[in-house]
């Protein structure tokens, strides 16, 4: 019952999903060509190429905010670890973020945690991509 509902919903959503994908493409292209803060247009609107995590970290450099960002990054990293796709340096980056927070350098802690969370999120993407594309490099 639940399953059927989800599939129907997914199908009706499909056009939006396709559009969302091309937003992602436009975003990545702008970021790749011009770096952080690049402005690009998509379907008549203008956007700034800032990673989700960079926006999240763009808050007051307080201890509470730093802790919140570190917690979010840790949670994401747990998700990717469960998929077997955790990256090697993420744990160290998180440790550095915690050390920066302990030193009172909340800005640095926020930025490091943002990077760690980004790594975890892209690792999850990498996992999903691998599930349907790993076979591309198998000799036939």
């Amino acid at each position, binding site marked *: 019952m639940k399953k059927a509902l*989800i*599939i129907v*919903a*997914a*199908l009706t*959503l*499909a056009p939006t*999903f396709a559009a969302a994908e091309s937003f992602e493409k436009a975003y990545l292209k702008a970021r790749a060509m011009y770096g952080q803060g690049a402005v690009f247009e998509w379907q008549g609107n203008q956007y700034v190429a800032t990673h989700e995590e960079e926006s999240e970290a763009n808050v007051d450099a307080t201890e509470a905010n730093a802790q919140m960002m570190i917690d979010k990054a840790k949670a994401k990293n747990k998700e990717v*670890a469960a998929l*077997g*796709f*955790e*990256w*090697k*340096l*993420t*744990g160290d980056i998180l440790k550095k973020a915690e050390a920066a927070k302990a030193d009172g350098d909340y800005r640095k802690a926020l930025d490091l945690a943002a990077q760690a969370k980004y*790594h975890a999120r892209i690792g999850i993407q*990498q996992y*999903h*991509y*691998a*599930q*349907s594309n*790993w*076979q591309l*490099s*198998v*000799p*036939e």
Partner: protein
Amino acid sequence: MKIIKMMTLSLGVVLATQMTQAADSGFTLATVNPEADRTALQNYFKKRFPESEVQDYVNGIYAVDADSRAQWEEIEEFPPYEFAVEEGEELFNTPFANGKGYADCFENGGVGIRQNFPYWSKEEGTVKTLEMEINECREANGEQPLKWGKGEIAKVSAYMAWTSRDQVFDVKIPEGDTAAMAAYLDGKKFFYAKRGQLNLSCANCHVQGTNIRIRADLPSPQLGHVSHFPVFRSKWGDLGTLHRRYSGCHKDSRSKPLKPQTETFRNLEYFQTYMSNGLVVNGPGARK
């Protein structure tokens, strides 16, 4: 918000299955065909390196690169693993505290059996490697297990390989055993999937990238990868097991390191050894 996330996720799954179905020839449990995989891999390397004999792939990079082969042949004149084999023999023949020994745990007294590993254990529902059984033998006889990567375990394993030289690998996937086939497929998938911060698959270096320089290193062909383990590496200055090598290479993709003898690595060994079926045991080996 949460609902939307779930829906896109399930859509992702729907899309993914469609894609695999479209492109499928041996990538799902229903269609995977190890023998076809093995032939395709051999043909791939035959085409890339027409001068190299299939049987010579047990010599790794030295099968396809003449320059490093000359250096290696010099090393092999005074094999750096010779002492390790002797020590391995001694360890192998030294009785445990209870009077029993390794020979009691293995078929044929543990001599000439390297080519039968790894194998699928139906009872345990998992891939068993030689090193795993060496430690199980110890524990069954009241001894502490050995560390996986190097030291005594590598020496005992080296001696067992030595007594098996020139035996032909013939790893089997029991017919109709879906779980065994799933383990093989898991190993195959692990080998070909890109992972880690550097986005590298094993195939990036050991299929596509074979014999092409990464800095001063030449990655070997994956065909024949397992035949000569454990290996004496000049870089290590001692003997190491296959899974020690797996750990190092896996880490090179900047993935969080996996421990030796995890299920993932055992499945990988199962897949890789199947690819080397028909080649001979030539362990222990020597590498740069």
